[in-house]
């Protein structure tokens, strides 16, 4: 598909560095799917859908900075929804979110809770101000918080909160790769799903730029089972724009 025009209807400041951009159209996605967001004249970047009609973005580079210049009434091009989202499981699920990694997990929490699935969330960020979607997770179930500086919840990393994972029917995780790798090493891989971030070019499963071993993050993912990741380069290296290996 060609990019469709999406007009920004609202911009919500989630934290000092993270904003949610709501659009005038819904993308009918399943939680975990993503879109390619084209800031015209600048770049096109992969972004998780945090609502059916919104993306939640951390200001990290030129494209996200350009996006932060936009306001209500401005528009961008969107291709999507793309990729494969989270595989929903019944029972009592555990969500583990680090920083802006909360974006694809919040709609999963809401979705699951409304279907009667019990949801517990481990939510981590650098500081209290950087916690994303705390209220959304609280409305869906129990929330346990960790911040690097101890300004809310326990002082330390969200991975330190992981305990008794055999109690949960499924674990869903999104955050910095080093954090996700720590989670993968602590739990039963077959019971967990991870949403990955890679440099994506085509988004169509063709060019191979986002490949992690043989897996296409844009098409076979971005959500993968822990088992698929266990034997892979996940957590060890990724590829840059040139395709060179770069240590995670």
């Amino acid at each position, binding site marked *: 598909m*060609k990019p469709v025009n999406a007009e920004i209807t609202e911009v919500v400041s989630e934290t000092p560095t993270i904003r949610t951009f709501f659009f005038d159209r819904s993308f009918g996605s399943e939680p975990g799917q993503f879109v390619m967001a*084209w800031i015209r004249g600048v770049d*096109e970047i992969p972004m998780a859908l945090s609502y059916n009609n919104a993306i939640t973005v951390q200001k990290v580079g030129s494209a996200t900075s350009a996006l932060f210049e936009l306001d209500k009434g401005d528009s961008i*091009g969107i*291709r999507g929804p793309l990729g494969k989202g989270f595989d929903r499981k019944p029972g009592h699920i555990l969500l583990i979110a680090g920083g802006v990694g909360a974006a694809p997990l919040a709609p999963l929490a809401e979705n699951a809770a409304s279907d009667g699935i019990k949801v517990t969330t481990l939510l981590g960020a650098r500081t209290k101000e950087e916690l994303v979607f705390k209220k959304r997770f609280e409305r869906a179930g129990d929330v346990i918080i960790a911040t690097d500086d101890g300004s809310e919840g326990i002082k330390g990393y969200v991975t330190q909160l992981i305990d008794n994972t055999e109690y949960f029917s499924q674990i869903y995780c999104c955050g910095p790769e080093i954090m996700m790798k720590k989670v993968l090493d602590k739990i039963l891989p077959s019971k967990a799903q991870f949403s990955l971030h890679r440099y994506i070019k085509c988004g169509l*499963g063709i060019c*191979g*730029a986002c490949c992690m071993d043989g*897996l296409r993050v844009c098409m076979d993912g971005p959500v993968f089972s822990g088992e698929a990741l266990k034997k892979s380069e996940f957590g060890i290296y990724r590829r840059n724009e040139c*395709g060179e290996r770069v240590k995670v």
Partner: protein
Amino acid sequence: MLSLKLTGIHLKNPLMLAAGIMGTTGGSMKRIAQSGAGGLVTKSIGVEPKSGHGNPSMVEVDCGYLNAMGLPNPSYKNFQQEIDTAKESGVPVIASIFGGCALDFSQIAGAIHADAFELNVSCPHAHGYGAEIGTAPALVEDITHVVKNVADVPVWVKLTPNVTNIKSIGLAAQKGGADAVVAINTVRAMAIDIDSGYPILGNRFGGLSGRAIKPVAIKCVYDLYEALDIPVIGVGGISDWKDAIEFIMAGAQAVEIGSAIGNNINVFNEISSGMEKFLSEKEWDLEDIYGMAHRL
């Protein structure tokens, strides 16, 4: 039934992965081999690491895909390990290489070990590379000749359709000593976002692949088969076994498949079983249909 010898290389079937598709990492090429490809052509590799054009670099259009990747690659200095990983699959690996001059090509070909080289003198949207070289017969002949001098494996030359007469470029490659030509690379194309007026691709224009270009490619293969003594490898818009048969009837000894992988990563297995079924129903073999259209 589908096996063949192509420029001295044994292929279990005439279906190869096209350059620029799933070809940057050893792991991704291995996966394509496991899904039934008879050969693997790598991403085009240059002298220095290159990040390519800005996004959007690929977009689906009405009847195919438009792309301007811009030759992103990790450079030949970081690429042998990917080829070696791909080779673990047991399928021949052909290194696609590009450069700005004959010296670039020979530097890479002298350093990389692969089962063959495919010279990319046909990328339509990389300034100073590709088609800017591949539209000049003298340059194509010179580059082919220089690579042939350093390479001890077959050298294929991939041609651009964006010329008045593709036969003259094919003849230049043959004169330079090419073992085969590959036709075609993408067709120059462009798309504009009507909501804003912006060209969609980061590079503004690019190359068209997929279904739309198949009849263009068939004609190029047909013409090259007539004009050349060396084998022609067909590529452009193949998405099912009928397309592959058509290319072989036009005069392709083997074919390469690219865009179709996006929607169907098992396209190689499906095409080879479809071809086998068709050929046995018709009581033909590959030799019977090779260049068939020319004899009728």
